[in-house]
């Protein structure tokens, strides 16, 4: 049987799926993203119960299942909590490899923002390193309106 298959022709059908979506960001993320775009400001939301400042802001607290009620402006600076240096390219990554992704705890936030690091020697990246947001010149109301984070002292 296996000999048969090693010689037999098998037909492959190529897919043509391309399904466009248009996602409403909702009121909370829309406010967050318009503030990134128009004011270059980063806003989180505080949970009235656990007092955590959520970044990105959410309408409800994932930990307490209550409405969040207070907008809190977050610093554009923070600390690298974890990082990876990406060595292989995919067409969906925002930069050519090698580059770094990081979990960043911004000052004033209680959750980590996931983003990319740039303008940095990849060998110098360490947990605890202070970084700051660099905003994109052409901002469109997207998480990539923060183009990347770079070391605070650079």
């Amino acid at each position: 049987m296996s000999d048969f298959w090693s010689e037999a022709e098998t037909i492959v059908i190529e897919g043509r799926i391309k399904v466009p979506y248009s996602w409403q960001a909702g009121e909370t993320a829309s406010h967050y993203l318009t503030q990134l775009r128009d004011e270059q400001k980063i806003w989180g939301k505080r949970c009235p119960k656990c007092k955590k400042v959520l970044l990105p802001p959410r309408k409800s607290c994932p930990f307490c299942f209550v409405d969040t009620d207070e907008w809190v402006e977050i610093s554009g600076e923070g600390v690298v909590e974890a990082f990876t240096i990406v060595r292989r390219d995919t067409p969906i990554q925002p930069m050519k490899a090698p580059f770094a992704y990081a979990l960043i705890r911004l000052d004033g936030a209680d959750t980590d923002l996931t983003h990319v690091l740039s303008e940095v020697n990849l060998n110098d990246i360490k947990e605890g390193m202070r970084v700051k947001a660099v905003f994109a010149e052409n901002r469109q109301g997207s998480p990539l309106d923060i183009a990347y984070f770079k070391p605070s002292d650079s």
Partner: protein
Amino acid sequence: MDRVAIVGVGQTKHEARKKESSFSEMVYGAVKMALEDAGIGIDGIDNVITTSNDFWDGRTISSMATGDVSGGPGRNVSCVEGDGTFGAFYGLCRILSGSYGTTLVTAYTKGSESVSHLITNAAFDPIHMRSLGLDMITACALQARRYMTRYGVTEEELALISVKNHGNALANPNAHLGMKVTVEDVMNSKKIADPLKLYDISPISDGACCVILANEERAKEITNRPVWVKGVSFCADAYLLGDRDLSECRALEKAARTAYKMAGIEDPKKEIDVAEVYDAFTYQESLWTEGLGFCGQGEGGKLAASGATAKDGELPVNPSGGLLGAHPAIAAGLIRIVEAARQVRGEAGDMQVEKDVQSALAHGVNGVCGQSHCVWVLGRDGKRG
């Protein structure tokens, strides 16, 4: 909980590209094997759960597409989107509802037929995360780094898990990637996303798996070698990566505690005889063994390095080779249940551990970086503590 048993198991050979079968034909193969294993025909099946993912299949309502080959027509067929352990959990609940005496559960993917980084990128929130271009590997690299840095787990300790599981897979006739590698080979394998190297990462496989569950009355009619479900639980954590401390797995700890309590297990390290855990990456086996209570927090690397999790160790982990040996997404957790059940029956062939297996554990994961976990404790007797 009423007693429920696994009465039949089947799986295909898992491989890089299955050319001889379409994915429904692949599922058909696993279903026939499970029925044959149980010694029953399709008329012995009361209801069907298919476990699939529309993105991986490239079709919507993918569950219905494999209904025909699971005995679906004329029966109640329902679907779980996620790992096969979660599909099996639903199948178990349907028996416990009293409405069905048997459930046939399938899970499958053909990873070779799509582009995995596009599929796993689509797991991320389209508003806040997806544009960053993360995929399963790069996200898990962040988790690996966070975990290793917090506890001082080394790349060499994790490489030992790659050596062990790829080596174990050599004894598994269904594995995709059995190979003899050394720690040096793993350390020198191609860097993908630090600290993950090629041999730290499970392969993308094509494969299908099937499990037949039965209530006590039917199980006793069907088989003289039932594998009883002694305890089972699942638990989820927050969705966004930044909401979790990725060096911990609290959802797994809770799922394991609940499953152990049901099974009457007080000290899992002593009472679990063999475990099949969801090692999509080497660091995950290390981290999940901590969450399962096999060792303390941050000690998973040392547990592996001690040899305790080797096939002839005190608590063998993944004697089948685990996901590092074969990783058809969605099916991977259900395969853990099948391999644990075969260990309980003493029918695991060259993979059979030396010790007598009273209790075996199977573990599945759904979501990115272990967002949710499903834990099963299986045994020869259904008695609970």
